[in-house]
């Protein structure tokens, strides 16, 4: 084999590393988690309301519901703000402002999640406790912090899809006498819809996957949440909190929680890929 041929094969081998790692992750998480799901039954694992590891009852419904509420809340905060920022960056900013704004968004993505959690803990939690009641460590606090954390994802992907629109869309609308605002609202946003939806789905994936910040501000009580001022536990925080000391079935149950999380994330990722892929073709 010549040197060129060898290098080509070698690079192909390297290039397959990401997909191999993904396969390894799936294999090892499933290998640890699936036996417990078989043993207890999928229904009783997913829909069970009782999580008492010491008594051998592993029902993750409260965590599934907790993850759902926190994620839903974060989208209410993050989507309008994120799309507005994307429009701002594409359509409204004077160059000087965007020179400050763009690095700021990158920085927002680079701030470690523990810093967000800490800020939520010392700023938002006391505010909520004093003004709205409840323990402060709550779904509301978690949603607000997560809503900010998913902004960079939503902004950058929405912005890309707005920028990818042909100039003629904008020029056509303006020449028909539409105001700038009407053009944005009635022409550009609908035209960039698929990219914006993809950005929201990816933001959702980030929100569901966040762990450390949520451990710090959600309060972590295993209970069915009834109000946004209540404490909650998500799928991720369940793993993060208990993994440190779990053994045997308990540890397997945490891996099984990981399996559920893995399926949710893969579903969301594939959905986002399909939606943005359809736009490309």
């Amino acid at each position, binding site marked *: 084999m010549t040197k060129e041929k060898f290098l*080509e094969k070698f690079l192909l081998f390297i290039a397959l590393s990401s997909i191999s790692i993904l396969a390894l992750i799936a294999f090892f998480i499933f290998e640890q988690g699936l036996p417990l799901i078989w043993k207890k039954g999928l229904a009783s694992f997913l829909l069970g309301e009782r999580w008492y590891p010491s008594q051998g009852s592993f029902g993750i419904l409260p965590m599934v519901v907790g993850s759902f509420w926190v994620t839903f809340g974060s989208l209410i905060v993050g989507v309008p703000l994120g799309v507005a920022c994307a429009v701002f960056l594409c359509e409204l900013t004077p160059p000087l402002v965007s020179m400050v704004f763009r*690095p700021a968004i990158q920085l927002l993505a680079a701030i470690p999640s523990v810093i967000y959690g800490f800020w939520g803990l010392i700023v938002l939690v006391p505010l909520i406790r004093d003004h709205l009641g409840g323990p402060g460590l709550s779904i509301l606090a978690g949603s607000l912090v997560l809503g900010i954390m998913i902004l960079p994802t939503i902004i950058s992907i929405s912005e890309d899809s707005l920028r990818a629109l042909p100039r003629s869309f904008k020029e056509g609308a303006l020449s028909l006498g539409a105001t700038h605002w009407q053009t944005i609202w009635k022409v550009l946003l609908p035209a960039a819809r698929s990219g914006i939806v993809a950005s929201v789905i990816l933001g959702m994936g980030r929100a569901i996957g966040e762990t450390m910040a949520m451990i710090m501000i959600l309060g972590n009580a295993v209970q069915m949440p009834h109000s946004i001022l209540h404490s909650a536990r998500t799928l991720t925080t369940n793993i993060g909190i208990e993994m440190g000391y779990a053994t045997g079935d308990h540890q397997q149950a945490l891996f099984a929680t990981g399996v559920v999380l*893995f399926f949710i994330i893969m579903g969301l990722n594939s959905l986002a890929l399909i939606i943005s892929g359809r736009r490309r073709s």
Partner: protein
Amino acid sequence: MIWVAAFFTLGVMIWIMAQVLREGLPLLTVDFLSDSPRQMGRSGGIFSTIVGTLLITAVAITIATPLGVGTAVYLREYTREGRISRLIRFGTDCLAGVPSIIFGLFGFVFFVIFLGMGWSILSGGLTLATMILPTIISTAEEAIKTIPKSYREVSYALGGTRWQTVAKVILPNALPGILTGVLLGVGRSVGETAAIILTAGSSFLMPTSLFSPIRTMAIHFYILAREGISMEMAYATGAALILLILAINTAANWLLHRYIRRLEG
């Protein structure tokens, strides 16, 4: 209204950083940076956690950079869009979306238990490497993509082989872009907690080898704040962490700008 949304976002970001920096910066002294934690972190400094952060990041970068750049070179220079490249891209996209706690679980069963590395710098660094790989691949690919076609044509016209073109033309020209991706990977490694708390242990003793367990700055900060060990120490550690992230990000931005200007000029 859109202006309000944009400045609200900017305001919250400044608020988050200012909150930590205002309380933390006055406590950030040379002694704090050069002394090791004492009494579980109630006093002393954060020197061993800085060393831990640097070592684990170094491991992650050393492993992820060749893999990431190799993948990008393969995707851009060695293959057309087809089944294999779609598979690779699918893997990269999915890997980018996997939550860090899942990487933590994986690192724990695979590196810590299965490969027998224990809670160590090596386990944590390798876990981080798998996590930052998609970032490095996508930035390296972008960097390679922006190199004008004429550069390649000249190299081939002069009789250069494919590998010579990659090694002598593509990589040197894409270097600043690749470094930007590496710096972004460094930033993620420095700030990561969920993936390494399960794989690198949380000992704040000075590491003696790659198999020593360590505690990074981010994990130290998390433990101080969550267990209420010392708010003062948490603020100071948080301030150090933010300054480090700021520096890394500024460097990445500066590199990127220089790169774009050179390609345009």
